[in-house]
């Protein structure tokens, strides 16, 4: 199956190729991802004005629907929606154990009754945003803010924006992703984005216990040894080590992990001298990254946060625009019929 006819492409795009939901990077081509980055660049400029607001989503209602807790992602989505002049409703709904499917549908029906125009969804279950996009009223846009182990496409795109700002393009770039690949939706989306945008090499660096069995099929090289893995890297992305994984006996100890895979100044010195250091946050200092590296001159971790607002503004305005264009097309066809 080609990218052109994949199911996630048809669910996410209008007939003429505009974004209308943003669920996953699978099936989206390089020109669309480049449009997102270019649009985000323009929103960065908006963020530098005295009035950091544009009227694109004026009169629209955006609901942040977080079934899983989040500070950074939720607050940057909120700020992004507000800078687009939307009204924002934040709902933090802790996942209840019983009948998730049904309660999810009911929650949505209630929110749709409030005339919402967009749902930003984070959910512990992979595929929840897809499910919502398939069943939601036409005209309502769904943005995936992280689902299970599946995808976190806005995080990956803000990382791509940060890389492009520093490196100019993706051509010839070697990018390493270090840490818990197995449980990481961020890594999955990053690998997809880097391959689509034409990076020369994506390398995942992790112990076997933190890699999926079919890691290479994601479109990356696998390296178990950090020293070898760091060689020639232009970009190193550290993933957060989720403490709860320790209990699953996937790792001997935090200290052991840091010794083998933590990004210290010594290990960073093995990469190219202009290698940038990234981390989706929140960072565990001394667990996956040394403080001197996180705060050092090669770190772009705080740029990632700033870029997160611009990327989310781009994706939200593009998806809302696609929905509205489709709606006026439907109306025009209805009038002709």
């Amino acid at each position: 199956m080609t990218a052109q006819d994949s199911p996630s492409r048809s669910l996410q795009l209008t007939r003429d190729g505009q974004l209308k939901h943003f669920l996953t990077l699978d099936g989206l081509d390089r020109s669309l991802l480049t449009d997102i980055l270019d649009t985000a660049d323009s929103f960065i400029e908006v963020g530098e004005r005295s009035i950091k607001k544009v009227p694109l989503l004026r009169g629209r209602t955006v609901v942040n629907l977080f079934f899983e807790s989040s500070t950074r992602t939720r607050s940057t989505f909120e700020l992004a929606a507000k800078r687009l002049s939307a009204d924002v409703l934040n709902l933090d709904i802790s996942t209840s154990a019983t009948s998730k499917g049904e309660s999810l549908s009911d929650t949505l029906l209630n929110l749709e009754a409030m005339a919402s125009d967009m749902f930003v969804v984070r959910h512990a279950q992979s595929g929840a945003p897809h499910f919502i996009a398939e069943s939601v009223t036409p005209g309502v846009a769904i943005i995936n803010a992280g689902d299970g182990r599946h995808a976190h496409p806005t995080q990956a795109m803000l990382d791509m924006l940060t890389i492009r700002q520093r490196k100019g393009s993706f051509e010839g770039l070697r990018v390493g992703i270090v840490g818990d690949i197995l449980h990481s939706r961020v890594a999955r989306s990053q690998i997809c984005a880097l391959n689509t945008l034409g990076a020369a090499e994506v390398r995942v660096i992790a112990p076997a216990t933190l890699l999926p069995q079919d890691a290479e099929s994601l479109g990356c090289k696998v390296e178990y040894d950090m020293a070898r893995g760091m060689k020639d890297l232009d970009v190193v992305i550290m993933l957060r080590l989720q403490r709860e994984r320790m209990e699953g006996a996937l790792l001997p100890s935090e200290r052991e992990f840091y010794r083998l895979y933590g990004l210290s100044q010594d290990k960073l010195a093995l990469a190219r001298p202009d290698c940038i250091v990234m981390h989706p946050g929140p960072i565990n200092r001394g667990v996956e990254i040394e403080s001197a590296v996180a705060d050092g001159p090669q770190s772009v971790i705080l740029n990632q946060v700033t870029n997160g607002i611009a990327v989310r503004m781009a994706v939200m305005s593009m998806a809302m625009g696609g929905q509205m264009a489709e709606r006026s097309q439907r109306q025009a066809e209805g009038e002709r019929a």
Partner: protein
Amino acid sequence: MTALLDMDQLLDQLEAGLRRTLAERGIESPALIGIRTGGVWLADALRKRLGLDEPFGELDISFYRDDFSRIGLNPKVTPSMLPFETEGRDIVLIDDVIMSGRTIRAAMNEIFDYGRPASIILATLIDLGARELPIQPDVTGRVLELQSHQRVKLRGPDPLRIELRETDSQE
């Protein structure tokens, strides 16, 4: 028809009109802002003709368009660039063609998000009439009346020229 649209003549007209308006209002150092894409080329040309040292600003009005709810976002938006503070300045807003007036409305909304200018003068190379909003240029190179099957477009940047096209369909 193309003979009537000599570029140098149009620019001479625009420059003379602008000099007159600036003199009438006692404005010595205006800040030029061109609307992408044609307006930016004209801002460049007018800046040289007026002998202004200050760089001109470039506006991309995609985020302010009033047809977003019908056609969605322009996928080729580029960042606006205003290399000066607009607060308290006398602005000359420049575009190639004015018709409905909607572009100018969007541009003025955007300019005000950078600060409150002292004044705005609107300069357009060609005025096609057909206004839908109460917005008129202060200075214009030429007023044109087009037939419904005719379209006009500024091509550039080097050389700048006006393209007049005949379309097949009578939209």
